[in-house]
């Protein structure tokens, strides 16, 4: 099995799905001849032509809205938002339209749409090229939301999203693009939406996270092993619907849980995960639920000390894990 980069896994998923189904097409800003500002769609227009890899006018609500129209007609659009920060002009189309089309038409019309958007900081992107907007969409019934960490999941979840009969927001982490590599099969497979994955088995503490912070969690867990702390790591992979059973099982394993994400703490996905655990497992816990998240500021600053302060890293994660283990 080939070891490839996260960004290549995303590109391969699109290429394979476009090969498989001629109704799949990509649209967005700069996705065509340039191949995307991150090169995510590089080579696709050469292979599939301008009609199926469509450079759109710079207008995010139209990118989402046109994709919704095409999806209602029966196509399988993959709409790219250049940065998730620029997704907000399309929020009405996503929340008022895509999410409600099946429901409001009583199952008559459907919207099988994928919206890809890069999330996360650490690239000196400042306030508007660094955000994690998942909590804005999280809790909107009708949407599915995935946020892969491993290249294997990046490919398998994108393929599953394309085949899904409902709208899926696919949050890819821009810091993961080149940093995270892993084994990815060449053959056709999907990773089911709605299933979390145990990244590491452990006995002392459970860490639940998604996307880029898992890189720090894995590194910290390896370090803590030498201190005699054994960490169980759950990658949520899908944020909506949350894998409730997977979460409860992972927490039961150790009785101590730390939830980590880069999105800010208040109202984040971690709050819902905490509530599920509190509702179901309160008396099986050996420590209060802990969260380690981005601070509650509007977004991260561009100055290096500020960005570093905002972002998670191995040391911050390790310290939180150690504290929980020692509780």
């Amino acid at each position, binding site marked *: 099995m080939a070891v490839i980069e996260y960004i290549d896994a995303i590109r391969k998923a699109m290429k394979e799905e476009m090969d498989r189904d001629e109704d799949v*097409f990509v649209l967005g800003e700069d996705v065509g001849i340039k191949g995307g500002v991150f090169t995510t769609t590089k080579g696709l227009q050469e292979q599939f032509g301008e*009609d*199926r890899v469509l450079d*759109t*006018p710079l*207008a995010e*609500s*139209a990118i*989402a*809205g*046109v*994709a*919704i*129209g*095409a*999806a*209602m*007609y*029966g*196509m399988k*659009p993959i709409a790219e938002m250049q940065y998730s920060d620029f997704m907000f*002009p399309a929020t*009405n*189309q996503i929340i*008022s*339209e895509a999410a*409600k*089309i*099946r*429901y*409001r*038409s*009583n*199952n*008559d*019309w*459907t919207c099988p749409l994928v919206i890809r958007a890069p999330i996360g900081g650490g690239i000196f992107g400042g306030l508007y090229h660094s955000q994690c907007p998942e909590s804005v969409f999280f809790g909107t*019934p*009708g949407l*599915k939301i995935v946020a892969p960490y491993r290249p294997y999941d990046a490919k398998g979840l994108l393929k599953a999203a394309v085949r899904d*009969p*409902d709208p899926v927001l696919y949050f890819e982490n821009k810091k993961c693009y080149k940093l995270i590599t892993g084994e990815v099969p060449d053959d056709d497979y999907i990773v089911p939406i709605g299933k979390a994955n145990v990244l590491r088995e452990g006995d002392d503490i459970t860490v639940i996270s998604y996307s880029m912070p898992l890189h720090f969690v894995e590194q910290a867990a390896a370090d803590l092993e030498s201190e005699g702390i054994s960490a169980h790591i759950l990658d949520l992979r899908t944020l909506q619907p949350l894998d409730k059973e997977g979460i409860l099982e992972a927490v039961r394993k150790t009785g101590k849980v730390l939830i980590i994400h880069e999105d800010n703490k208040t109202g984040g996905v971690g709050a819902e995960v905490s509530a599920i655990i509190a509702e179901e497992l309160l008396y099986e816990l050996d420590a209060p639920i802990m969260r380690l998240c981005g601070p509650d500021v509007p977004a991260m600053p561009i100055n290096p000390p500020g960005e570093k302060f905002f972002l998670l890293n191995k040391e911050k994660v390790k310290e939180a894990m150690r504290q929980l283990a020692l509780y």
Partner: protein
Amino acid sequence: MTQPASTGQNVRHLELGLSDEQAIDMYATMVTARKFDERMLLLQRAGKINFHVSGVGQEVAQVAAAYALDRDTDYYLPYYRDYGFVLAVGMTLRDLLLSVFAKAEDPNSGGRQMPGHFGSKKLRIVTGSSPVTTQVPHAVGIALAAKMKKNPLVSFVTFGEGSSNQGDFHEGCNFAGVHKLPVIFMCENNQYAISVPIHKQLAAKVSDRALGYGFPGFQVDGNDALEVFRVVKEARERAIAGDGPTLIEALMYRISPHSTSDNDLAYRTKEEVDLNRAKDGIPKYKQYLIDSGIWTEELDAELHTKIRKLLDDATEYGDKAPFPTPESTMLHVYADDAEQGGKG
């Protein structure tokens, strides 16, 4: 009943490609929409329904536009006043009354949405929402998809002049212009966005905006049925020929208040309303049919009797039809919400 044939003295509809029968059907649909609207007002005032948003004064343009489309292939994205339009493309009074009473059998939404939020996949009426003009990019997407699939059809979308100020209108028009897509954008300019008059909404004509998107824009008298028909028909021909979109601004007047919750005399005068009521396109079109020799007052009386019966039937049917079950609230969030009892 026997219908007199056209005398040939007044044959504009024949020149435009409408048979006598089609010309009369158009009229019957306009009157049906008007009578529906008046009945809904009565039902609301009688406390039978909670709310009605009216289309009175807009039926002529709606119906004429529908007749200029291919009612077997085209896709429609109407806005909430388009009762005349949806009746013209196949929705029935029963369908509308089921929606008004929010009953389970309502084909638009199964009793989930407010009336006027149309949708029927069978009739290619694309489901709509309340935030205005979100349907414009959808119409563009449908046209894009049809073009990709090489299916010769047009998507037709309507909206008010107030909502032509929304970003989605501009973003959608621009996208359609760039890709020369087969879309017809029709603004039903009824002079008011609830209480805000046109001079506080627009500093120029809506139709002139087309210039900025690279396609033609036309103003048309929305009370002139045959003129609206002609303009939409020509727009459709251009779209099918690959010549791209058209923006049509149909000028009309919202004769009714915005909705049953609105007191319009708080912001406009009775004189203004009466002046515009006198310009109503339905009696004008009726006179045209009479002058053409294909319509009579007797036939008109028969038509009104027939519509009244249909409305009585539809009202009773809608009123008596069962509501959705409370538990059905949980259904159809996702395709696979089977664990909630939904369709697998």
